[in-house]
Structure formats: structure tokens, C-alpha cells
């Protein structure tokens, strides 16, 4: 491991913005194309232009912002855990049903026994439904967060 941490690591999460900070700075200030050395930023993800809102800045900088973020994280985690637990229960139910209720093996549809149908086909729509449910919930949580922070940042934005 000869490659030590480079300067990029000093700021673990750089601001969203320029995909390749060195390169863009060179182009903007010089006004002419100069040779740019392209190296991978350690963890500088190129973000879509203007990816972060005022609410995002607020969240990072102020105490009230931190409170908002904590509540967002809590609600997202609660949602994820609820969906995961629901799915886990269904999965466990299927496992227990197959293992402990032998009569399920004798029920067939088009010669296919019920346990095969449940595990081979039936469980997949359940997975998809869980995913759709979660996506809706997660987007709703984020919308709430945005509305909440917009109330706080609106006056600042009008300066």
C-alpha cells in the first residue's frame, strides 16, 4: 500500500458541484484550454449541477437543520425497518408453513405443488410490492423534509 492519502481525503465529503475540481477551475480562470491532469477524486462524486438545495446547506450548518435531518433519518429508517420486517415475516411464514404443515405439499395447481408455487413464483410479486411501497414512502418522507426546510429557508433565499 504505497499510495498514501492525497489531499482529497482532507475534506471527506466535498461539496457537490464541479465533477473534476482541478480541471474546471483551470478552464474557468484561464479562459483558454490548458492541459489538465485528470486524477480520480478520492470521494468527490460529480453531482448534477445545483444538486444541493438551500435546505441541504441549512441541514449541514445549523442546529435546527440538524434536528430536521435527524427526524428525516429516523422516519426513513422506521419505514425501511417496517417494510423489511413485514417481508421477513412473510418469508418466515412461508418457510414455517412448508416445513411444519406437510399438507401444503399435497395441494397442487396444474400438477405443481403449492410450496413450489409459493417459493418459485408467489414470493416475487410480494418482493416487488414491498419495493414499490417503500419507494413511495421514502419519496413522501423526503417531500415532507423539503417542505419543512423550505419554510425555514424561504426568507433567506429571497435576499
Amino acid at each position: 500500500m504505497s499510495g498514501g492519502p492525497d489531499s482529497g481525503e482532507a475534506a471527506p465529503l466535498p461539496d457537490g458541484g464541479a465533477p473534476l475540481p482541478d480541471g474546471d477551475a483551470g478552464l474557468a480562470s484561464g479562459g483558454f484550454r490548458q492541459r489538465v491532469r485528470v486524477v480520480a477524486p478520492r470521494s468527490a462524486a460529480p453531482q448534477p449541477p445545483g444538486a444541493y438545495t438551500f435546505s441541504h446547506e441549512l441541514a449541514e450548518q445549523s442546529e435546527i437543520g440538524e434536528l430536521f435531518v435527524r427526524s428525516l433519518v429516523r422516519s426513513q429508517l422506521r419505514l425501511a425497518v417496517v417494510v423489511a420486517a413485514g417481508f421477513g415475516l412473510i418469508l418466515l411464514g412461508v418457510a414455517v408453513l412448508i416445513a411444519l404443515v406437510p399438507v401444503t405439499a399435497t395441494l397442487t395447481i396444474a400438477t405443481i405443488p403449492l410450496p413450489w408455487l409459493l417459493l418459485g413464483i408467489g414470493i416475487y410479486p410480494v418482493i416487488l410490492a414491498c419495493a414499490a411501497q417503500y419507494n413511495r414512502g421514502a419519496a413522501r418522507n423526503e417531500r415532507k423534509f423539503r417542505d419543512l426546510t423550505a419554510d425555514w429557508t424561504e426568507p433567506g433565499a429571497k435576499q
Partner: protein
Amino acid sequence: MNTAVGLAAVAAVCAATVLIGIYGLRISRTTGDFYVASRTVKPWWNASAIGGEYISAASFLGVAGLILISGIDALWFPVGYTAGYLMLLLFVSAPLRRSGAYTIPDFAAARLDSTAARRVTSLLVVAVGWLYIVPQLHGAALTMRIATGLPGWAGALIVVVVVVLSVVTGGMRSITFVQAFQYWLKLTALAVPVVFILLVLTGSGQSPTGGGAAFDPALDVSGDASLYRNISLIVALLFGTLGLPHVLVRFYTNPDGAAARRTTQLVLGLLALFYLFPTIYGVLGRLHTPRLAGGGQSDATVLLLPGRIVDGLAGDLLSACVVAGAFAAFLSTTSGLVVSLAGVVSQDLFRGSVKGFRLAAVLSAIVPLGIAMGTESLGLAGSVGAVFAFTASTICPLLLLGIWWRGLTDIGAIAGMVSGAVLCGGSLLAATVAGPALGGWAEPLGQPAAWTVPAAFLVTVVVSRATPRRRPATVARVMARLHTPERTEVRDPVFRSGKSGPAN
């Protein structure tokens, strides 16, 4: 199987992969392109690419082979592979995308503000990647032997050469196209022969399931799996998917967190669709190729089935179809792993230059080639399952706790990863070496996830609690970055006029 047809199928898939790789080269120019396609990949492409990368030898060949051996218990594998993606969606996808990191070690470094945590994560990621490539190469060896009669190592070598070529020339951008292409190739390669087979069977008046005989547990070669084994397997697959390096790197190619979630949902649909087919092959195999189960050749079920049921040229063509699909599976998973490993290795060893990435890609592919040549396959689904257990016990606690728990410290994360690696790696090794001699211990050691994953979480939490002063000062900022949504509508008027152009 007809040798010429088999060779042609392998050659065609390899040529297509290399060609798409070269096409990708023309639009791949910067380091950002090389690593993660500059994050401009559309959800549909991305979802197909994720599906293409994820469906490995274990899914394409292993699932059907396992159904042949152990009947209904084998169905837990595809369920677990798919549900693992659900866990990924719930707990990881959007925050990880927002973290802005390129690789898991990048995430560890950013979240924990620690070079040591980064190093340990890098080592584990490389270990996981190598272990995961080996079964792919075993699958390639098996396919080569069966399809062409050539020695198995030729298949493994071809996969490594094609992957290194396409990765070195195109990086991730072209890999995205290659992977997306390969998902659909794999799906078609299984679906078309199965439709033919079902038509032939019903046309000749046979019931495809033998009137239900295919589901008879008496056909199983292995004994019934215990409830413990099934639960442990599901734990491994559910939580192992979170930590697979090639799966994670794909999420960075989404434009934002919400897109990452949408992509994952699409992936779930694609996986659910795909796994229908290996299951059908397995069921048909129980009737038509039952002898493969006893001879340790069960993973060849998918490859041999079309030729068994459909005669003559049509049978050869259908066989060529599945051979091509199988090679697509080895190529896509291996190249995904090589890209992500090369990303990690080149950052740590070569300071992230493009040249370093290329060198790292070669390194990442050659080591597992050596391992694969020196070892024998022990059943593809099983060996991939073991890798999932290892990932679930090491990288998964780091990711889950790092994303959702402010209390995580670098010491805690390292302690958890190391103890998970020692416990899980140790038991898998013991189970492989000692085998049945372990008696009652054989099952908990051979399928360890049910206890090693909670143990790794426990160690991480306890040690983090004991070292509260190691909490990084940046944690509040990082949590805000991980969880707050990106801007969806542009509010800045100057920016808006710049964006929408002449229409305004």
C-alpha cells in the same frame, strides 16, 4: 453437444462483448468515465446493467443444478438473491449514492474519517471480489468442457482475457453497455430454449412436469435441509448482497438518490423475471437429466437439457443459445467485479490514475484465475452462497451502521469487520477442510451467516460504544449528505435561464 456450434456460440458472445467495449471507448475519456460512467447512465440501462452484472454463474447454471440435487430447498437461493436487492433498496441504495463515494473503501474513509478503516475495507473488498470471481471461472471451465470438449482451463482463460480487454479499453462506461446487453442476452438465452422445449413436450403429448413427478422429493440426492440451514442461507443472501463490491459500484452511476431507488425497483422486476427460467430448467432437469445429480455434474443441467429434449440441428442451436448465455453470465459478473476491484486497488496502490486502473484491472483478474485453475468447483450456487455469508459478516455491518447510526467509530467498524471475517472465514474453512468429520458442528460452520452476522454487528456496536471519542467530527455533515434529498427543481433564477435555453 456439437463442438463447432458450441465454439461458435462462445466466440460470438466474446466478440460482441469486445465490440461493445470498443464502442464504449469512444465516449469514455476522463477518469470519471472510467470509474463510474460519470453518473449519466439512464435508469433502464442501469437497471439492465445491474441485472446483467448480478446474474452470475451461480444464477444461470447453479440454481437449476441445485434444484436437481435438493429440490424445493434450492428455491431459497433465487428468492434470497432477489430479496437481497430489496434489502439493498431499503437500507443502502439512496444514501450510498448520495455519499458521493466511488467504492466501499471510499465510503468508509468518508464516513469514518479514517485511513485505517479504509485500508481494512479495501482488503476485504478485494478478498470478496477474488472469491466471487473464482466460481465464475469454474463455471466457464465447466461450460467449455461440455460445450466444446476443450479442456476447462481454456474457458476460464477466455473469460479473463475478454474481461481484461474490455475493462482496460473502456472502463465502466462501456461496461455499462456490455452489462445491459448481457442481461437481455442471458434472459433470451434461457427463455427461447425453454419455450421450444415446452412446445416440443406438450406437442408430443407429455406433461412438462411429468404429471407432477418432477416435484417428487424422492428425486432429491441430498437430504432435506434443516430450518436452520434455510434461515442461515437467507440471512447470508439478504445481507450479503448489500456488501458485494460490484453491486455497490453500480449505484454510483445513478444521477441522484431517488433515481438509485427507482433503478433498484426496476432491477427487482428484472431479477424476478429472470429467476423464473432457471427454476423451470431445474424442474425439467429432474425429469430429463436426473443422472447429472449423482455425478457431481448437476451444474451442467441448463447446458445439456435442450439437447436432451430437442433433437438434431434445432437441439444444437438451442444448446448454443444456452452456452452463449452462460458465457455472458461469466463475462458480465467477472467484468463487474474486475471493474470494482480495479477501482479499489488502483486508488490504494496507484493513486487513482487511468494507467493505474488498467494495471489494477489486470491484477484483479489474474489472481482469481490462478486460484480457479488450482481448485475444483464444489457446486456453483453453494460456493457463491459462501461468499455472500462472508460479505454479510464483514462489509454489511459497516454499511448499515455507517449509514444509519451516528455512533459508529472507525475502531468499532474495524473490530466488527475483522471479527466477522475471522469467524465466518474460519468456519467456512473448517467446514471445507474437515467436512462431515465435524458432526453436529458441520451445519453451523458450513452455513455460518445466522450467527456470524449478528456477532459482527454486536462487536461493531459494542466497540463503537466503548470508543465514543473516536466518533468523527464530520458525522453530522455526513449524515445530512447521506439522507437529505438532492434538489429536484431548480430555484435559482439565473441557473434556470441558463438551463432551459432559447425557449425561455
